[in-house]
């Protein structure tokens, strides 16, 4: 995977997080010290992201899953991967429902929510299914 592809993935991941969170809620909690929130959260995300990058750089040939198994062994490795999986799954479920809710309140007042959800999930499934071929193509570059 080249720089461009990596940038596209990371950019979208950050962009989605950025546009999904509602800063107003943060400001209500943070009050006077709200200016610190973006700085601190930025530091936390950026530092851990850098750690991740340097780790991936060390093991160039391995994927993240292989690295976790290699570093922490079979038992703790599977535990960590399970945790990672649950985190991603939770985010996936919540954000899918989020978007369906947004669509249903803003545009499609009379459409059943389940229908919107189904359409979103079918599209997402198709794209991740196609992704196998793209991954295969990226190995050539």
């Amino acid at each position, binding site marked *: 995977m080249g720089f461009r592809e990596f940038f596209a993935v990371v950019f979208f991941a950050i962009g989605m997080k950025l546009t999904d969170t509602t800063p107003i809620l943060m400001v209500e909690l943070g009050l006077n010290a709200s200016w610190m929130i973006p700085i601190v959260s930025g530091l936390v995300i950026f530092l851990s992201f850098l750690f991740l990058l340097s780790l991936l750089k060390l093991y160039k040939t391995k994927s993240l899953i292989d690295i976790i198994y290699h570093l922490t062994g079979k038992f703790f490795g599977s535990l960590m991967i399970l945790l990672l999986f649950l985190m991603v799954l939770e985010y996936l479920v919540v954000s899918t429902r989020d978007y369906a809710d947004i669509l249903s309140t803003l*545009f499609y007042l009379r459409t059943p929510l389940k229908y919107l959800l189904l*359409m979103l999930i079918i599209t997402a499934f198709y794209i991740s299914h*196609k992704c196998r071929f*793209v991954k295969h193509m990226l190995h050539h570059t």
Partner: protein
Amino acid sequence: MLNLRIQIAPLIRKHFKSEKLVSESIEVGEKSKNDVYMMYVEGITDPNLINTVRERIKGIKTDFLSNVSMLEQFIEERSYSLISTVMYTERPDRAAAFLAEGHVIFIIDGSPGYLIVPVTFWSFFHAAEDQYQRWLYGNFIRIVRLLAVLISLLTPALYIAIVNFHGEMIPSDLAVSIAASREVLPFPVITEILLMEISFELIREAGVRVPTTIGPTIGIVGALILGQAAVEANIVSPILVIVVAITGLSSFAIPETALSYTIRISRFLLLMAGASMGFFGISLVLIIGLAYILSITSFGVPFMSPLAPHFPSSNDTFTRAPTFKQGLRPSNVSKSDFIRRKKPKRK
């Protein structure tokens, strides 16, 4: 039977003069033995590609192979796909330009065209004139063409999505005028659009089949009179005539027939999505389409490369660089030797 050696192959040799230009003949057909000539440039064309293509030609089982258009359907990878991954052209200059970039071309005795593999989206999107015009003019027509692709793909779908679901998106004056013009009409918008789109496709097909002398008449009778009469008879709204007219006009600005068909058919898919689910449906279909064309390959070359996935090239995609700066062959096709010349300098 026309003899190939005095017909088409020399046209290529006139454009591309090199001792590296190889032409192999492969016999195809069980009842009638026709020769398929495969041409490539040694040292530029990827040897793996040549082998794959040769094997595929040898694997063709048929009685009789009369022309390259039939050959196209025998060697293409996805017969049911909306997108063609083999290109047909009748211009020898274009075929020679593809040869020089490491593609393989096919010629069959007595058939007037050339078949080019592998191709990318850009092969269909570009026309020879883009390179022949000066940099600014060439890029201008490319941008106009991109606009034409988008308009002819999306306009009917966007129109129906706005009218059916998202009336608040357009200025209220326009919304009022659309609503006022639709008030007297008996049919729902989708019926109207389908009616007009299908009649337009009919006019188009009839215009191709009809003798040339009355061709323009068909256009005038079909488009002008039918449209005008349909509006006056309160069957379709005047705004819809604008939508269908601009869509049709744009679809004529697409140079390659294969791309034109792709867009004309996907327009109906998008129309259905827009009619049933508004902008949400259109965006879902667009995303699925994008994922699809990004995932397919033509003889091992990703269809949207060198843009995505990225390969070193002269960035001859949506726009192009001035001719003297195009120092790289697209390395998605000619993998081994893609540097035409070192960093170019002008004298």
